[in-house]
């Protein structure tokens, strides 16, 4: 009987001690952790200083992706309305964020440094469709609020 009370007191003692210790968890989303700038999260497509897209639709990211998460369709831009910095551009660019394993190989393969992995990692949606990031979405990199 006495042993039992001792054991309970010891257990509760640990509990009360832990209450006053500093916390390891964050009250997400009220408070958010700072990640390393090299963290590999959601992709973005970059533009140059003149506002031209850097992506030329070469498809190397698509070729290198181990998860087959990327789809690129290239096209020729009309000479008076360039989209990228050259006459070839990607008319369609999709990343399936469910398939992606965030290995960063696409970023490494890109010869124009157009596709980049941002630290943004708040990826959630109600359906799978919504997890496919299209070009529009990737051109406006997501920012954590």
């Amino acid at each position, binding site marked *: 009987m006495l042993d039992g009370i001792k054991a309970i007191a010891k257990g509760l003692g640990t509990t009360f001690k832990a209450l006053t210790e500093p916390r390891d968890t964050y009250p997400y989303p009220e408070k958010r952790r700072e990640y390393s700038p090299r963290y590999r999260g959601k992709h973005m497509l970059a533009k140059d200083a003149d506002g031209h897209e850097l992506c*030329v*639709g*070469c*498809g*190397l990211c*698509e*070729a290198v992706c181990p998860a087959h998460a990327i*789809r*690129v*369709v*290239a*096209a*020729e831009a009309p000479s008076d309305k360039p989209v990228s910095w*050259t*006459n*070839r551009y990607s008319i369609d660019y999709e990343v399936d964020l469910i398939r992606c394993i965030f290995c960063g190989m696409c970023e490494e393969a890109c*010869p*124009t440094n157009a596709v980049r992995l941002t630290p943004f990692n708040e990826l959630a949606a109600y359906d799978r469709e919504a997890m496919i990031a299209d070009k529009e979405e990737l051109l406006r990199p997501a920012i954590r609020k």
Partner: protein
Amino acid sequence: MIRLTIDGQEVSVPEGTMIADAAAKLGIDVPVYCYHEALGPLGACRMCLVQVEKMPKLATACTTAVSEGMVVHTSNPQVDKGRKGVLEFLLINHPLDCPVCDKGGECFLQDYTFQYGPPAGRFQEPKIQKVKDGPINEFVLVDQERCVLCQRCVRYMGEYVGEPQLLLEGRGVETVVTTVDGQPATSQFAGNVIDLCPVGALLSVPYHHKARPWNIERQESICTLCPVGCTTLATGRDGHVVRVEGRPVPDYSWGWLCDRGRFGFDFAVNPARVTASWLDGHEEAAARTTRQVGQWLSQVAQEQGGDHIAMVVGGLHSTEEAYQLKRFAEDVLKTRRLAVSRDVPGYLPRALNGTFADLDAADAVVLIGSDPYDAVPVVHLRLRDRKRHAPSTQIWGVAPRNLHRETLPVNTLVTHAGFEAAVMAAALKRVAGTHEAVARLTADLVDSVEADPAQLEALGQELISSQHLTLLWDGQESDVESVLVALATVRGDKPTRVLPTWGPSNWRGFERAGFSARIEDLTRILEDARDGKIAMLMLFGADLLREYPDQELVRQAYDKVPFLIAEGLFPPMDAERFRAILPQAGPSEVYGTYVNMEGRLQVASPSVQPPGQARPVKSYITAWAHALKTSFTLPEDWDPYDDESGDLVPAEPMPTAVRAVSMPVQEAGELELVTGPLVVEDGIPSDILKPRIPEYPGRLSPEDAARMGIENHGLVRLTRQGQSIEVAVAVDAAMTPGRIFVPLGMVQSPVNKIGSGVVEAVRLEEVHSA
């Protein structure tokens, strides 16, 4: 045979073989740019350096012939250093814009640099800038910066095709590939330079910036747009064919294509294509139309009997599909009214059918009516190649117009329209008149065949005495069949081989499947239809109004048939008369075997899905069998290949019966209409090819044009036996005076409405819509 050692392996090859080919025989890869077996050695690029023992310097494997006891090393420090050096030089001015280059991923400069090249170049100066994406013609782009100056393209056009429309301009590092006088290259073989160029300097316009080797479906296929049946690779991406390339097959073909086959693939996505269906004039879901046709079939079969249903197959259907139709017709419908759609009356017995190897072996070639450049383009190339390698090869023509071309000299005996068989028979009579077969052949021939006796004699001699005779025949005169049989009989053991140049391209395949390809059977169906004996006429890929030689008979037949049904890629002519039109799945959309003019079976694999509601024939058949309440199941295991004959359709015994050639009557008149196929105008639309499709497809000699007051081109009305057609004609200096050429099968100028022969021609004012 010469024995030599390459990388420690011994090989014996015939004398005169180049080291590069001997190495290839051992499976050793020697990198090459300028060398191509069809073009012969040149030694321009230095990529193929190898070390030959006892030679002081590295040697080029593509220009050094083997010699007895030679010891060759294709890979050692010295060779590697040589290759590194060559590649570093090639890359000095190379833009290295692989990310925007269509060749990226399938480029020999990438591959060889990766395999043998230096890790970095030492050249720091700015690179020379040249033309990028400049036009060669409507279909080919040139990026001069990427060119490695191998000259394959220039030599191909100049030497192989004989239309020297590309050249090298400038000197040293400033050398560029360009067109003569900056004019677009007009040759129909220009597209082949895209396949030939080892780097991304010559590019396809329709494929420009379209895809990469890793995101396409590339399948072995067959071009079915003419009877040659060239071997192709069809590239599909996102459900559409986006490119067609030539596919070399060792010891069979170099993989050349004509521009019709290379760029005409977009018929599959043409807006005119049937992708849903029509039922009594309104658009309807294909499944519903299929059910309705099934009900009609069962109604006709019950009320009148299955024999009141007739089936005609044509177009781009595969041999398997024809076989399924035939089984359905015989096992379920119990009709024997089956025929192949034909646009010329001739028929060639299987036993006389030659192969392309007969062109390569021939010492005499006779073109009966056929202009290979227009009708079977790649055969024209093959013939030219034969003539280049064996200049003594005699090429004769017997045709109602001169077949001579700059690229292929043809000694043409120009006949009147309809006189080819008579002239050939007369020529035979002169040299072998006593032979029984010739006597029978010429029984009805009166000696008034208008031709130069010396020429007739010479032709006759050629026909009889050549060692290997190969003939091309356009099928316009059915009597020629008899002439050919007699000729083969007279020649006995010496090969007499014939290549038929008419469509539909797979007619021999339809025959293999059990359809009769003789026009008499088709005519009988049409006559029975006209006489009200046919309740339902089903056309599979066939467009009889456009194709059958007598348009009037087809009209009368259509008038009398209550149920006209069509299945095809495009709506048939007079589509509004059809009760139902169903969509067809084409080549590259379904697996199929096609038989070309050699009688060779070739398989085409699908690279895309059929568009819209188009389905293979068997899904219609299954639905109809169901409507007819039968338990018919399609035989899945039929194989068009034969155990004995390999990839050729089975051999048949040589026919011996010779019919007498009937003596044609020469009508009086100044101008004769002659016709023949023109592949770019074969009725299958293509938006990509539009700039090549002649606005004025008819051809007229300058003399006749001057007489009619036509300057360069104009519109004429041709009248014959009370019927007339209007044709847009261009003046063609190569055209024989007294003849006007109008291609077969043009909807706006249907030759089959008036037939060939003497015509009344009137010039019309052209109305230009603003």
